[in-house]
């Protein structure tokens, strides 16, 4: 049992410096500043101190000391997360895993890569390319984000429908627990005996342990990939087209949709030649052997035409394929150009409700007085509404947050969920109360308690306290009833 003994910042620093290079124990505000937030920069906090260990043994000692004194620990990879999951705790240690950046081994025959957690997602595929292999999950932040962070968030990307999320592409994880114990979870095989702890750890947002090594699966790089771009004059038709492609037995490698706001912003930015008058744009990528791609591209083009596409264009070269993707990949910065700030949401819905959800969002957009552009992983139902606002105008961020919250509620109402790939973090901890009831949330707390009895890992994130939920639900209820009144009177 641990007993709480207060420890001062000076004493904690002194203890860390006995086994960590003093340069890597950062305690001054100025040097700690870059760590104050992750990719969701509206949420900021300075930690007590920042520490950058270089060995697993050091991570274990840090955890033992923090556990003994009940000092919160927030682990951090590249800090590209979009739910403030890596935002520091003001009374805690920010544990940066940046120094664990080595690719330990690539086994081309077994198609696996053994990695330190700070290895960047894209670096894995770059290193594996010499063997004709690559790593499947490709979140938009893949240039910067790390595999340790990917495990923590169960990251996806545009290729999930066919190649899965992080959880589908792991063999083995080494992890240090809150109590400082090193655990090996998984194996070089495809499963292990007992409970599937690998599944439980993946996507646990740094609440159950600190990942210190990861072994991932690698895939053979497809011979060919081609993309078909299709414009539609309404969202419903485009949404139906997605379903029809899939119902015809084609599983696209990527299937993305953009609404008219996103089309114009992206085309202005990338000059990709998008149909600017379209209400919805689909990008459907097919990969595989030459024969397979040839066969499926022809079917896809024909289906899009038959289903009422107003324009259909297929990439005929790698350059053209990259150009067509460029607009989509730059959609976030492109939207950033048309607005001082934007807030990226991450709900999922059953695809059949797409038109309804987009129409509702338009109504909300008017109600909140904020524009919204939509980028959508259409294949797997993951929406990324980008709410445009100006943080310099008092009250606009709060309105953007309220708008975002209404979108997430809508996602749950149609049978979806509050986060597809960005995680809960701090950002969506309130909305957990919409998706889960108290008994379910308590079960999550019990799981957390099994791993981290003192509750030092990433406290306040991921799962809300039950008291907080009751307050939030009653507030939501009041807001919701007021909304209805407003609509009735409007």
């Amino acid at each position: 049992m641990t007993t709480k003994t207060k420890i001062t910042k000076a004493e904690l620093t002194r203890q860390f410096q006995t086994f960590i290079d003093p340069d890597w124990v950062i305690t001054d505000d100025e040097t700690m500043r870059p760590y104050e937030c992750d990719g969701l920069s509206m949420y900021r906090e300075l930690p007590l101190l920042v520490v950058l260990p270089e060995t697993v043994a050091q991570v274990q000692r840090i955890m033992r000391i923090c556990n003994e004194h009940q000092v919160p620990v927030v682990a951090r990879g590249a800090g590209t997360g979009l739910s403030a999951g890596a935002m520091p705790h003001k009374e805690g240690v920010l544990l940066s895993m940046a120094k664990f950046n080595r690719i330990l081994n690539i086994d081309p025959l077994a198609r696996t890569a053994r990695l330190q957690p700070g290895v960047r997602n894209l670096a894995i595929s770059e290193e594996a390319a010499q063997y004709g292999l690559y790593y499947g999950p490709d979140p938009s932040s893949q240039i910067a984000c790390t595999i340790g962070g990917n495990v923590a968030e169960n990251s996806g990307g545009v290729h999930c429908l066919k190649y899965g999320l992080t959880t589908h592409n792991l063999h083995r994880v080494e992890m240090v627990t809150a109590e400082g114990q090193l655990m090996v979870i998984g194996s070089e095989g495809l499963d292990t005996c007992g409970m599937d702890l690998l599944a439980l750890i993946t996507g646990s947002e740094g609440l159950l342990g600190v990942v210190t090594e990861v072994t991932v699966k690698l895939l053979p790089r497809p011979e060919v990939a081609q993309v078909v771009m299709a414009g539609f004059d309404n969202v419903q038709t485009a949404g139906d087209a997605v379903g029809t492609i899939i119902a015809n037995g084609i599983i696209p490698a990527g299937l993305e949709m953009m609404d008219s706001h996103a089309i114009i912003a992206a085309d202005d930015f990338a000059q990709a030649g998008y149909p600017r008058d379209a209400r919805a744009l689909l990008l459907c990528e097919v990969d595989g052997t030459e024969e397979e791609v040839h066969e499926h591209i022809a079917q896809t083009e024909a289906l899009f035409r038959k289903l009422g596409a107003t324009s259909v264009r297929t990439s005929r070269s790698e350059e053209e394929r990259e150009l067509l993707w460029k607009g989509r990949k730059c959609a976030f910065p492109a939207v950033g150009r048309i607005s001082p700030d934007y807030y990226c949401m991450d709900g999922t819905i059953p695809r059949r409700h797409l038109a309804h959800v987009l129409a509702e969002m338009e109504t909300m957009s008017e109600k909140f007085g904020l524009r919204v552009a939509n980028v959508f992983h259409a294949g797997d139902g993951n929406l990324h509404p980008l709410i445009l606002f100006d943080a310099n105008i008092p009250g606009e961020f709060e309105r953007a947050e309220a708008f975002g919250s209404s979108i997430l509620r809508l996602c749950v109402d149609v049978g979806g969920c509050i986060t597809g790939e960005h995680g809960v973090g701090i950002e969506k901890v309130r909305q957990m109360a919409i998706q889960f009831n108290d008994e379910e949330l308590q079960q999550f707390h019990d799981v957390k308690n099994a791993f981290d009895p003192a509750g030092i890992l990433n406290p306040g994130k991921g799962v809300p306290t039950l008291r907080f939920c009751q307050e939030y639900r009653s507030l939501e209820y009041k807001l919701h009833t007021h909304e209805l009144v407003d609509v009735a009177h409007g």
Partner: protein
Amino acid sequence: MADISRQLQEQVLHASNSGQKLNITGGNTKAFMGRKADTTANILDVSEHTGIVDYQPVELVLTVRAGTRVQDIETELAEHHQTLHFEPPQIRTNTTIGGTLACNLSGPSRPWAGSVRDQVLGIRLLNGKGEHLRFGGQVMKNVAGYDVSRLQAGAMGTLGVITEISLKVMPKPAASMTLIQDMDINEVIHYMNSRAAEPKPITAACWVDGKVYLRLAGARSAVEATADKWSGKVMENGDALWRSVQDMKHEFFSDSDTPLWRFSVSSTATNPDIDGQWFIDWAGAQRWFQGAGQLNDMEPLAQAMGGQVSLFKGGDRSGDVMHRQPDALKAIQRRIKSAFDPEGIFNPGRLYSWL
């Protein structure tokens, strides 16, 4: 088609209040797996909790009650040219989807298509307090909360009663073809892995009795072009072979007297030279071994192969039958068990003596 979740919940509540243990059973087709069931426990029968709750072919999502037979699911999916991509073994026709998830059983396509655990999107679960909980969702991506759904795979019912499962389903491949050729066991590991590293539509690879079998499936043109390029003869009734492997009805599995061991190991590991018969599946990642032996002797072999071993069928089932766990993992699984089942009522001792 019946929803008996209320009755199930009452039985769990009763057990929880009276200290009665429960052995969860579906089609009772996998009674041979795990350790011997506790004879003092009552049976909690989920097999009447059946029916498809929701199936949206264009969404690729199926939600079913856990007692639903795999056979019935396959029939329904086939009408829409879809399938359970992980090829669940139907040991008998009354195999249920709940038992399949609890035991984490997947067929020959597993290295390419993923396992049953990989296809799970969400579940409903009765925990040891009799609370009927919902985790995950009915959409492809859901990262809110811990992944309690996939945690059930291989837990053999020790954490609760799975009552409902949402699964990702996939289109049936348009065409398939099986290539067969003679090959020595010493060459086959390298051969299967080399083929798996090529960007071709390979969806199964096994070796038994001096022959290697590769299945190609997908767009017809791709399957035919690859079959032309690769060595091996096209097998007449390839699909029947894979069905027999999937359902463990292949001749190899017919010997019921000798213990059957399952090695889940690195696909490239060298096969150990021990007395007995081998069936190599999953391009080397799952290896069945029929032969006498003790778990004590098998574990070091499996570890040297980068994985684990279990006594799948037969042999002495009063001791441990699953690869034993290091202390740290044992401790955490005990704590997780009590987080879900504080009174320890579900499937006592079935997975491990200490669970």
